[in-house]
């Protein structure tokens, strides 16, 4: 994709981000931070490319090793981030409505 195309995607995504994030209820700002941290670990894509690449030149072995380390770091964030978000979101409960009286048999 050429530069203008990806720039367009970026600009539009910023607008989407602006509107979507303002719509997040303040009560869920902490899960918001946790989940945005998890998705920013999509950097693992770059790490996987580095780790899988055959290389030309002296640097490629180091590049691969760094890629693997980055995969570990990003994986911690991905699994940890989504898991802790899920854990938090499960805690939010509404007031219990009074149970409707069960009809007697």
């Amino acid at each position, binding site marked *: *994709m050429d*530069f203008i195309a990806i720039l367009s*995607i*970026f600009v539009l*995504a*910023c607008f989407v*981000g*602006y509107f*979507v*994030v303002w719509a997040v209820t*303040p*009560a*869920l*700002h*902490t*899960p918001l*931070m*946790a*989940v*945005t*941290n998890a998705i*920013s*670990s*999509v*950097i693992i894509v*770059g790490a*996987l*490319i*580095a780790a*899988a*690449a*055959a*290389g*030309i*030149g002296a*640097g490629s072995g*180091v*590049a*691969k090793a*760094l*890629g*693997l*380390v*980055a*995969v*570990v*770091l*990003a*994986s*911690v964030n991905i*699994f*940890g981030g*989504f*898991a802790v978000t*899920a*854990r*938090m979101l499960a805690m939010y*409960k*509404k007031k*219990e409505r009074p149970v409707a009286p069960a009809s007697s048999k």
Partner: protein
Amino acid sequence: MHELTVSPWASLAYLVAGVCFILALRGLSSPASSQRGNRFGIIGMTIAVVTTLVTHVPLRSVAVPPGNPHDLMIDWVTVGEILAAIGVGAAIGLVTARRIAMTAMPQLVAAFHSLVGLAAVLVGVAAYLNPQAFGISDLVVPMIGQPFAVIHPVSRIELGLGVAIGAITFSGSVIAFLKLNGNMGGKPIMLPGRHVINLALLAGILGLIAYFVTEQAPWVFWTIAILSFVIGFLLIVPIGGADMPVVVSMLNSYSGWAAAAMGFTLHNSAMIITGALVGSSGAILSYIMCRAMNRSFISVIAGGFGAVADTSGGGTAIDRPWKRGSAEDAAFLMSQAEQVIIVPGYGMAVAQAQHVLREMGDKLKAEGVRVKYAIHPVAGRMPGHMNVLLAEANVPYDDVFELEDINSEFAQTDVAFVIGANDVTNPAAKTDKTSPIYGMPVLDVEKAKTVLFIKRSMGGVGYAGVDNDLFYRDNTMMLLADAKKMVEDIVKALD
């Protein structure tokens, strides 16, 4: 020009992943849709990872007899290494997520940000060392000597920015973690001339990135990285412990921009979309925090606030009279009330009092008292922190209200119960123009018929270094004890 050819299917898959992430954030508009949103996030990440693994299968050349073309076979060793790396990360991440206490969420988020920052730096370095693999360079084969890769000029800018922002995110987040975790004192550490130093470093980094475009020299690249690590450290060190909500949001934003820069480098729409989402999210949260403190973002980042202050307006040691109460007094007052509004703050988190607080709320509700919770946006060390702690304690979220929604109710409330919050309840913010917190939106607790304020002792000031006028009002009763102990005693007295 050698471009990394990306199959259209892969591009489509990355786009779908990006859309899933948008839906994940959209789900957070209410607790009801939030868990489904989180699942979209997981689906999106899975799509992105699987697509990458499938389109970048590690290959190795098999040595064949001279004269024959090389054969390419799947490099199972590397496949194993990659899967092992994912496995190790998954194990660490899942165990941490399971075990972490909700009161430690701010430092966990800071620690996670540091990992993203470091990952961005490592990916940047890997791209610099092996640019052919990322399709961002042209291979030059000279007549003599080894072939070398010349990175495209635009890619050099993107790479430089990605590494710089990633490094700042990393070192800044490490300092934020240490401050939030208590390993480092919350007091701002101010170096002389720090503004000049920081601006010089920033100018240096930007200048070097521009220079990198003309001269692809290793020293330029490494200097960019090192300077960025240093400035990340220097930026956060002078910021006081309780301004961390803004810092953590800011670093959240930076981790997004780092991912976006890497996305530009790799022409990957999933990373670009994600980077934009996360960058905007952090920026908006920072803005909300600053607005709630009525301080400009620049003034927070410039640091130095929250020093144990000298004198603010009227900080002389005149003994002002104040009323003291006991747990039994509090229990009596609240059980007779029609409505009680509880105002929690960071002190409640420190004392781990959220569970007994909910017990107290339940006992009051059983006696027919209406119980509501009022949250100030900067209560706690992270946006929304109080809400999570209350949710953990099983407080229903429809009993919890934000400042704008509940402030008008204090005037009709019998008892305001302040536990662990201080500056956000100080009426001086509305009246005293000389106060450092003047202009900050605060909760109108003093309008309630009675105010009960839990504090360990009368000495000591809040984060802003000011004494709280609330303590000395006629309708305020101070409950001096550890927050958890006091609430436990009140629960006993309510029986």
